[in-house]
């Protein structure tokens, strides 16, 4: 049995099989697996070398031996080139110049080989010797002359070893268990077997030993080591593809659960692949072919152009989420779709396919639409402002109230809506609001001024709410044009002020007789005194002392008349309500002075019990005089039917907690049962000539002073009018 033939044939077969296998892998997977092609060449080279070595063992003449050996350098060249390329491509390391030097020296050896008379190794082969090699008879070169060029392939081999050692070391240094194993297995086996092959060949060429060439066997070992590593890669790739399939399955499942459609558009062939769930989402038939045009027919006509433009943008590299669009299902249902698209280009940058995910967002759109409708339908202007004070949202009322269109406002600073003279104040408000953003309700917020597009300003009421959306904080302002309300309020206040004035005049009308008396008294005294003086002057002897007394009386009475007029004026004067610190007891004394004569005429006795050290209240002194005047006159009226000596009006003041209390008690006719509160209604009167506004006005004044006014029956007879006013607290310094 020729075991030599067997070994070499097996080696040849193994090399060829491995080479063809990986050549096929390259052919199937394309240039991403170009390392397999290099491997295939290296393996083919080994196979070629193996054939040459087998033929050498059987060479009959020196010439045949030399020829075979010469031609063996071609597969050797292929083998080394394949190995160098493989290491470079597979490791992605190694110095380029070492690789090129290896290949160049090998190519040089090949050239020299074909120029040499016999071949690269021998200048001359004298004879063929048949020698015993492990029990087999093989042919070896004999009586040879060594060719010094033989050192060139040795150099090439050494360069190869250096190159591989360097590349392996670099890979090792990059780290990673996988890479290190690869560097160790491939690097060490290549270095070892290249050196063994080279050393053995050199011993044969220098006739130190007589042996057939064993290069192919050593290189087969290298090839096996490489193949081992490659096969691990193939196994890993297979596992990866299995994992990927699984994850794709999971993704499809998740997509269908989320009503998402995964799709891929083959741009070149205009075919859209879509999972069954996606087809269901868009209403496509399970087996129909979907082109871009077919896809667009599903899109709502209003959105079709926008979608087409969006796709065009993605085609030229636009990224990011596309605008939402509507589709119309075969049954006419309209759904909202959100999509994310991504383009893939080929090596030359041409778009090849587009991948994407489409999602049914109808529910979200409906909710958004509802909230948008709500905002739009709000009866006041709403403006949302971001942290920088820029307007990010408005509703249609903004256009009505401010006269700006939405487009004019979006993205602009809020200052656009504020009159110049308020901008500084506004900035302060913004700062203080930013410091403590809380909800300020409309109507309880502050009054501000707004600026319309035509530059006019208007009174506005504003409500504020902070809105947090993700990391951003917005402020939502609701604005109400209160120009008309404010005008109405002003008018109302004006009317009330007129009414108060009217009531005052009417009560003064009741007092007019007494007031005339009050004035006539001092005037009468003055006149009489003056005329008495005139007469005294006519006398021969002038009583100077008497004249002095007369003048003193005239002066004091004149002052008294002036006081009366002053009080009368202040009571008659109609002006803005003033806020001052008022003593209730002082008010009572003023009014009693003013009504002194009237009370005399009416025969009413006044008894006062005024509290000592009564705290002051805050208000309009004249208005409070009016209140007291009305209460006193009212009490007098109630006692008109009584005999003169029974007409008694008591006025008492005292403090009760944080309020000053006042009670005016008459012993008159009292109020009819159940009408205790009706007396405060306008135009309610029990008097024949009464207007019925006195007590209504009185209560209005009291309430404007944050006080209360009510009645109680006086035990026995008559009525008590209770008045309560909050104590004035001086503001903290």
């Amino acid at each position: 049995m020729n075991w030599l033939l067997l070994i070499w044939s097996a080696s040849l077969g193994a090399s060829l099989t491995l080479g063809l296998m990986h050549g096929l892998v390259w052919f199937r997977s394309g240039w991403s697996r170009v390392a397999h092609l290099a491997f295939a060449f290296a393996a083919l080279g080994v196979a070629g070398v193996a054939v040459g070595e087998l033929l050498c063992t059987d060479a009959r003449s020196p010439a045949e031996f030399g020829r075979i050996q010469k031609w063996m350098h071609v597969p050797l060249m292929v083998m080394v080139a394949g190995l160098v390329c493989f290491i470079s491509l597979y490791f992605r390391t190694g110095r380029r110049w070492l690789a090129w030097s290896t290949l160049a020296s090998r190519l040089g050896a090949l050239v020299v080989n074909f120029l040499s008379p016999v071949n690269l190794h021998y200048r001359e082969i004298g004879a063929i010797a048949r020698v015993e090699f492990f029990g087999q008879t093989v042919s070896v070169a004999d009586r040879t002359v060594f060719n010094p060029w033989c050192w060139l392939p040795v150099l090439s081999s050494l360069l190869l070893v250096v190159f591989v050692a360097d590349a392996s070391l670099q890979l090792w240094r990059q780290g990673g268990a996988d890479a290190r194993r690869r560097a160790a297995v491939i690097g060490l086996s290549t270095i070892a077997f290249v050196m063994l092959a080279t050393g053995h060949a050199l011993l044969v060429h220098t006739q130190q030993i007589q042996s057939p060439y064993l290069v192919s066997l050593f290189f087969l070992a290298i090839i096996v080591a490489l193949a081992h590593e490659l096969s691990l890669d193939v196994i890993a790739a297979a596992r990866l593809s299995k994992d990927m399939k699984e994850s794709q399955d999971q993704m499809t499942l998740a997509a269908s659960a989320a009503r998402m459609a995964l799709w891929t558009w083959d741009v070149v062939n205009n075919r859209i692949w879509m999972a069954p769930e996606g087809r269901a989402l868009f209403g496509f038939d399970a087996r129909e072919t979907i082109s871009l045009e077919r896809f667009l027919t599903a899109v709502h006509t209003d959105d079709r152009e926008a979608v087409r433009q969006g796709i065009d943008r993605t085609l030229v590299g636009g990224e990011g989420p596309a605008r939402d669009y509507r589709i119309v299902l075969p049954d006419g249902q309209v759904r909202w779709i959100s999509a994310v698209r991504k383009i893939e280009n080929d090596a030359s940058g041409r778009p090849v396919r587009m991948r994407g995910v489409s999602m049914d967002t109808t529910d979200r759109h409906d909710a958004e639409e509802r909230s948008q409708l709500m905002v739009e339908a709000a009866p006041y202007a709403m403006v949302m402002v971001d942290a920088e004070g820029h307007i990010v949202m408005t509703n249609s009322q903004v256009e009505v109230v401010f006269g700006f269109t939405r487009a004019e406002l979006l993205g602009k600073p809020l200052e656009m809506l504020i009159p110049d003279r308020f901008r500084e104040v506004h900035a302060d408000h913004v700062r203080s609001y930013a410091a403590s953003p809380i909800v300020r309700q409309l109507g309880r917020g502050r009054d501000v001024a707004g600026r319309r597009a035509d530059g006019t300003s208007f009174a506005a009421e504003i409500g504020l709410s902070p809105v947090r959306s993700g990391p951003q904080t917005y402020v939502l302002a609701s604005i109400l044009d209160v120009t008309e309300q404010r005008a109405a309020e002003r008018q109302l206040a004006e009317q009330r002020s007129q009414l108060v004035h009217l009531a005052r005049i009417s009560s003064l009308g009741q007092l007019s007789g007494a007031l005339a008396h009050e004035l006539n008294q001092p005037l009468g005294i003055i006149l009489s005194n003056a005329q008495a003086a005139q007469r005294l002057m006519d006398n021969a002897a002038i009583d100077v002392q008497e004249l002095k007394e007369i003048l003193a009386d005239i002066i004091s009475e004149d002052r008294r008349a002036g006081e009366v007029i002053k009080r009368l004026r202040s009571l008659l004067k109609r002006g803005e309500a003033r806020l001052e610190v008022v003593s209730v007891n002082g008010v009572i004394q003023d009014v009693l002075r003013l009504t002194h004569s009237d009370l005399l005429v009416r025969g009413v006795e006044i008894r006062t019990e005024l509290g000592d050290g009564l705290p002051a209240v805050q208000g309009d002194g004249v208005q409070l005089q009016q209140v007291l005047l009305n209460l006193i006159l009212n009490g007098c009226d109630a006692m008109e039917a009584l005999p003169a000596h029974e007409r008694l009006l008591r006025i008492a003041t005292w403090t009760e907690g944080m309020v000053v209390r006042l009670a005016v008690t008459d012993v008159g006719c009292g109020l009819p049962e159940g009408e205790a509160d009706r007396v405060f209604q306008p135009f309610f009167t029990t008097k024949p000539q009464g207007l019925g506004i006195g007590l209504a006005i009185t209560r209005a004044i009291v309430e404007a002073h944050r006080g209360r006014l009510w009645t109680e029956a006086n035990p026995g007879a008559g009525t008590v009018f209770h008045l309560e006013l909050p104590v004035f607290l001086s503001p903290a310094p």
Partner: protein
Amino acid sequence: MTAHSPIVYLVDDEDGMIRALQRLLRAEGYDPRGFTSANEFLGAYRHRPEVDCCLILDVEMPGWDGLQLQERLTNEGVLVPIVFLSGHSDIPISVRAMKAGAVDFLTKPVESHQLLASVRSALARCGEQRSLSEFARRLPLLTPREREVLEHVVTGKLNKQIAGDLGTGEQNIKIHRGRMMQKLRVESLAELVRVTAKLGIGAGGAGHDSREVIAGSGQLGA
């Protein structure tokens, strides 16, 4: 001002007013006496038949007011003539006052000549009242014949006619008439006619009227 200066009473709740009026009245030679309330006045007033007097009365006062005081004085037969001086003119009140016999109703501020004119007429009324009551006091001194002559004289009849009516001689009538004039201290026929007309004598036998006048001059509070 003498012991017989006419007295002017003043009732007003205002001290200043009383002082002013007192000065004015003193300058005119009257004897003014001021009171700040009706009660004070009532306590101080004494009837003095020998001196003319009148009352200047305020209307609005604490306690008794002017009208109430007037009413009380009338009820008690005190016929002091009253000039009202009110703080304000009020027609119903002034009508009441005048009906109740007031001499005048003035309002403050009052011109001095106006006030003094009223005071003068009030004092004149007082004097008249005084002379009437004097006359009435003397009437009972007449004999029945003299009384008859008086009643005939005041109707404007001549002595001869009276003598004819009474069935006596003209000379007798002359004597009766002279005595009658002397007893009644009347200077002239004109005065006699005026006084008797006031007393209602000779106008159809209303002689009892005179008794009221006499009673009216009685002392207050007696």
